[in-house]
């Protein structure tokens, strides 16, 4: 399915354009993009698997919660999540597993996931969204 994300320019912060065939692929690519921004995912040995279940007001809020959850756990435990499985997803609910391990070097510390112009849109390649991260 290719990389599923690319970095786009933002004056002060960092932003990723993310795409996927469906909501599950979009969410997985977004999480992989976040890991790629923060560190070299190839240096991470997945030694931890964390089950996650989230509910939110709508799909965009769910996406912010999903990425925010991974960031929070990175700050708390030092785990960089690089591999993801989504078992069930609707625009307001997600159940899945995130796998990861300690990263050798954090190349880009990320502080928060913003709602800046956040909108999941239908596109040629399925769904597309641009996420701005506060750094």
């Amino acid at each position, binding site marked *: 399915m290719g990389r599923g994300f690319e*970095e786009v*320019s*933002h*004056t*002060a*912060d*960092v932003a990723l354009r993310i795409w996927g065939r469906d909501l599950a692929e979009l969410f997985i690519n977004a999480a992989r993009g976040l890991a790629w921004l923060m560190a070299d995912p190839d240096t991470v040995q997945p030694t931890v698997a964390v089950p996650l279940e989230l509910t*939110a*007001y*709508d799909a*965009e*809020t769910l996406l*912010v*919660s999903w990425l*925010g959850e991974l960031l*929070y756990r*990175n*700050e*708390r435990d*030092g785990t960089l999540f690089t591999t993801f499985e989504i078992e069930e997803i609707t625009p307001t609910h997600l159940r899945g597993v995130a796998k990861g391990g300690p990263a050798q*070097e*954090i*190349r*880009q*510390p*990320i*502080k*928060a*996931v*913003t*709602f*800046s*112009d*956040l*909108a999941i849109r239908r596109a040629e390649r399925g769904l597309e969204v641009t996420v*701005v991260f*506060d*750094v």
Partner: protein
Amino acid sequence: MAEKKDFRRVDRFIWELPKEAREDMRVPARLFADAELLDAAFRDRTVDQLINTTTLPGIVRYAMAMPDFHQGYGFPIGGVAAMRTDTGVISPGGVGYDINCGIRLLGTYLEQEEIAPYLQDLTTVLYRACPSGVGGKGRVRVSGRELDELVTQGARWALKRGLARPEDLAHTEEEGCMPGADPSQVSPRAKERGRPQVGSLGAGNHFLEIDVVEEIYDPEVADAFGLRENQVVVQIHCGSRGFGHQVCDDYVKGLQETVRKYGIQLPDRELVCAPIDSPEGRAYYGAMACAVNYAFVNRQVLAMGVREAFEQVLAGKVHNFDLFQIYDVAHNIAKFEEHEVDGRRMRLCVHRKGATRAFGPGLPQVPEDYREVGQPVLVPGSMGTASYVLVGTRRAMDLSWGSTCHGAGRVMSRHKARKKIWGADLRREMEEQGIVVRAGSNKGLAEEAPAAYKDVSRVVEVVHGAGLACKVARLRPLAVIKG
């Protein structure tokens, strides 16, 4: 999309976009800039974001951007907007994630030559004394109950713990304690993130710097602030760490539904808000005030770390190693303030996002010993370049709700800066200029390279020329510590 030609020059440094420019604007938009800085506004989304800000319910007069403006999220950085308290809204997107990110300036009794032999050692000890990095643990660990007291009492908590002096509080915006803090409106996760981080710098553009006063522009005001030429001073730039980030995150998410409940139409979801006079608006204010207080304590604890480091390295070697507090200002905040609107005093909720309060002389909010001259305004430049101390003006009260710029303002993305600039080269260049550098990573240094920012002197000339604040002193870095 608004273009440069749509802006009307209303004064030498003020450019106004009439509210007719976009259908959903409630008030005009104003940019403070000279011709060159104005061009920068059209190279990113600054103007769109400023126009978006004009659409917020209850906004009074204009949405404004200070001359260090650049694209942010929600409000542009450098954004200032005041809302009526009866019909207006409060917006976490108008404050930002790093609530009460701000600057503290400490003065010394030392001249540059006196610390020169000890500068390397001093910088190393400071680097250890002031922990950095995103998840970096702070100098002080607090229990859950202590954290509730800390965020309610702000700098007064630090005073009780022996981590502040009474005169530090007197020289802090709000005396280091924002009223109305309500820890019951803060999530357990924010508290969990906040507990281990009290007294830490964090990452990104946060820094600690030893500077020398290179030039005095206004000797009378400089004297009132305790500044003199060739004096060594210290700047601390940081905010409310994971605590403030989580508060913002919780409310930006939580208020998405609230916006619909109150029928508020928004052009950008990051501008999410709640009526000031609503349970949701009061809850955000109560939580935000906690984060404001957390940040005041954070900088206070770091200031005590700086004092300890100076003592450790300089005791017995210089005549006086002590540091006194000149001032501490917030640059990401929403506050209730009284201002004059059409000849009437009015209570407003002033949002400053990447903007500094710059109250003029005579106001009770200005510390007593500065009241005759006005409030000190601290404007750090980009890393390795100049910083400025300014003073608030009466004119700023009329023009910008008593607000001015907060720094140089970015012009280049971090991504581009990392690609274009080698951190190692930058480190060498700074060291060749005699600046001592301690940084977590060269990549982090590259992102904060001066080339990624506007020229702070140009920004300061605009605020000085527009009368938003007046120049008092310029600082030059001797040592830079970065997360």
